[in-house]
């Protein structure tokens, strides 16, 4: 991708990825213990124990109420109870780091989780996402050395035995989009976008149960049983209703997507997030045509994923059939009526969207250099022929897992990439920069620079504020409305020029909060 001035989108987007973890020499290790040690080895890149959990509320529902309990509360309580038996404090178990690039790295009870800084350009998001892979790769090396075994990190979503973990996408969008318009507009889109966004999987699963099966294009489709809901661990919904905007709640909503796969291909991530952001933008202006509605969204979700012939036919609510390719193409045409495609990054995404759909219709194998599910399918197919294996052979599932290994010297995705068989959108330099520095066009710049320069003065941090101590008083820098063109440039300039937090207090005219 050529270096051009980055033009921000009007909203922020970000990715939160839970990684799988194992130890090569011992399959029976305690994954939580390993996860704690692994995350703590990132200490040189961030500051620990600053995250303010008191302001998080995963029970707040976008349908206008607060859920009394989540289905996962019992599981969470059970995990928490088990973890309390460990010789660690809550803070030690969480091992929560705010990183110098504005991201978060912590132990989410069960998995190391990396949340990218919020970004307002796609290319920065891709670099920040890859920075997370590199950070975890380094953590695995450091932890391996310290613990004298080989820690393996996997950027995937399943253990093939019915246990899934997520790669959640976040899109900050205007709250003025009516919730019902969002639901009906995003259902058919999210269900069908897996044809280019899926990471691919060999086998079939349901909760706590795996079975031999053919190749499917989505890692997560097996685990979704509801249309709309607030849960994220059990009875997962296609449309998640968690309502934590992490911005001015009167103006913004965070659309939280939990059904996507974790992608290794930069192109797959770029297209997945870019097309989703385009559809969300178009929904500001109009609802989707009723002819896009699916007859049976949950059935379509799994049948598309499992179609061995890659035809992806689906039944429409108004009668008749179409295909996921045709419906996605209809979405692209519809989006073009509302979104300003003079924006350079939006235009690129839109064109790539159309081209990808056209290629999927005519020659999907040609996409093995950019779509994860097709790159993996091609690898497995090639190996299967080489070794004369059946599709049920467990060796192929092990290769599926190995595709996702973030260790670049061993992982199969990285074998393809280093051979030049996978398209890149970033350079190694972009990723190195993203490990050390926050994105330049979002409020994460302020957070990252504060971690880099004033971490000893910080009291706590959230996505939308930073609290610090100065002269015995607490001050809070509110970032809830800090967007490009609205406060952000002023905040960035003040932070860049500040010699101490006193300069921030003075130049932004902050008032003490009281103690």
């Amino acid at each position, binding site marked *: 991708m050529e270096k051009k001035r980055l033009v921000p989108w009007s909203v922020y987007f970000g990715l939160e990825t*839970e990684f*799988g*973890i*194992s130890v090569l020499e011992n*399959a029976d290790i305690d*994954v939580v213990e390993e996860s704690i040690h692994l995350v703590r080895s990132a200490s040189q890149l961030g500051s620990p124990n600053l995250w303010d959990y008191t302001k998080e509320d995963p029970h707040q529902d976008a349908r206008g109420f607060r859920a009394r309990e989540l289905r996962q509360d019992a599981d969470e309580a059970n*995990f928490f109870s088990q973890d309390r038996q460990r010789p660690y404090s809550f803070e030690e178990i969480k091992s929560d780091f705010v990183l110098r690039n504005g991201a978060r790295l912590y132990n*989410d009870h*069960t998995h190391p989780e990396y949340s990218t800084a919020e970004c307002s350009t796609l290319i920065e998001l891709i670099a920040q996402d890859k920075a997370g892979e590199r950070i975890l790769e380094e953590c695995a090396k450091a932890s391996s050395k310290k613990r004298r075994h080989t820690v393996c990190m996997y950027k995937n979503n399943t*253990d*093939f*035995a019915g*246990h899934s*973990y*997520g790669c*959640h996408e976040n899109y900050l969008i205007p709250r003025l989009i*009516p919730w*019902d*318009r969002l*639901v009906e507009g995003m*259902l058919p889109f999210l269900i069908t976008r897996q044809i280019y966004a899926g990471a691919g999987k060999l086998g079939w699963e349901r*909760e706590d149960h795996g*079975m*031999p*099966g*053919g190749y499917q294009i989505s890692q997560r489709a097996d685990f979704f049983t509801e*249309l*709309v809901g607030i849960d994220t*661990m059990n009875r997962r919904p296609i449309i998640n209703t968690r309502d934590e905007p992490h911005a001015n709640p009167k103006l913004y909503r965070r659309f939280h997507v*939990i059904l996507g796969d974790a992608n290794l291909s930069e192109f797959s991530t770029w297209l997945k997030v870019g097309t989703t952001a385009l559809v969300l933008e178009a929904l500001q202006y109009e609802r989707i045509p009723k002819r896009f509605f*699916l*007859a*049976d*969204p949950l059935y379509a979700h799994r*049948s598309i994923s499992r179609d*061995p*012939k*890659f035809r992806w036919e689906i*039944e429409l*609510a108004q009668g008749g059939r179409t295909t996921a390719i045709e419906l996605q193409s209809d979405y692209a045409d519809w989006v073009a009526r509302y979104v300003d495609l003079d924006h350079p990054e939006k235009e690129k995404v839109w064109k790539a969207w159309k081209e990808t759909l056209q290629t999927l219709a005519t*020659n999907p194998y*040609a996409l093995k250099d950019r779509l994860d599910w097709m790159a993996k*399918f091609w*690898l497995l197919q090639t*190996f*299967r022929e*080489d*070794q004369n294996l*059946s*599709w049920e052979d*467990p*060796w192929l599932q*092990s*290769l599926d*897992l*190995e595709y996702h290994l973030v260790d670049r010297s061993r992982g*199969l995705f990285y*074998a*393809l990439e280093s*051979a030049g068989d996978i398209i890149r959108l970033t350079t190694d330099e972009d990723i190195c920069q993203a490990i050390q520095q926050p994105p330049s066009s979002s409020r994460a710049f302020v957070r990252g620079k504060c971690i880099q320069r004033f971490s000893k003065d910080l009291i706590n941090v959230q996505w939308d504020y930073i609290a610090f101590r100065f002269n015995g008083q607490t001050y809070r820098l509110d970032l809830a409305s800090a967007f490009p063109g609205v406060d952000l440039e002023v905040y960035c300039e003040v932070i860049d020029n500040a010699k101490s937090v006193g300069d921030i207090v003075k130049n932004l005219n902050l008032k003490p909060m009281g103690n």
Partner: protein
Amino acid sequence: MKNNMEVIMLMPEQGQKNKQVIPAPGPGGGSGPGPQAPQVEKPNTEEILKRMRKVDPDQARRYRQRTGE
């Protein structure tokens, strides 16, 4: 404009129109009358096949994780 509940109710009702069976587990692979492999020059696969042959066939069977979010 429908309210939230109307939309949520609408979707399952539509779903009941078609009682279809999810394809049963079976061999995948795009065989049969689906998309055909392109007639393109095959890249050098020997290096990557070498790496793949080193992968322990039982690795996935031993890989167990807790359910996450």
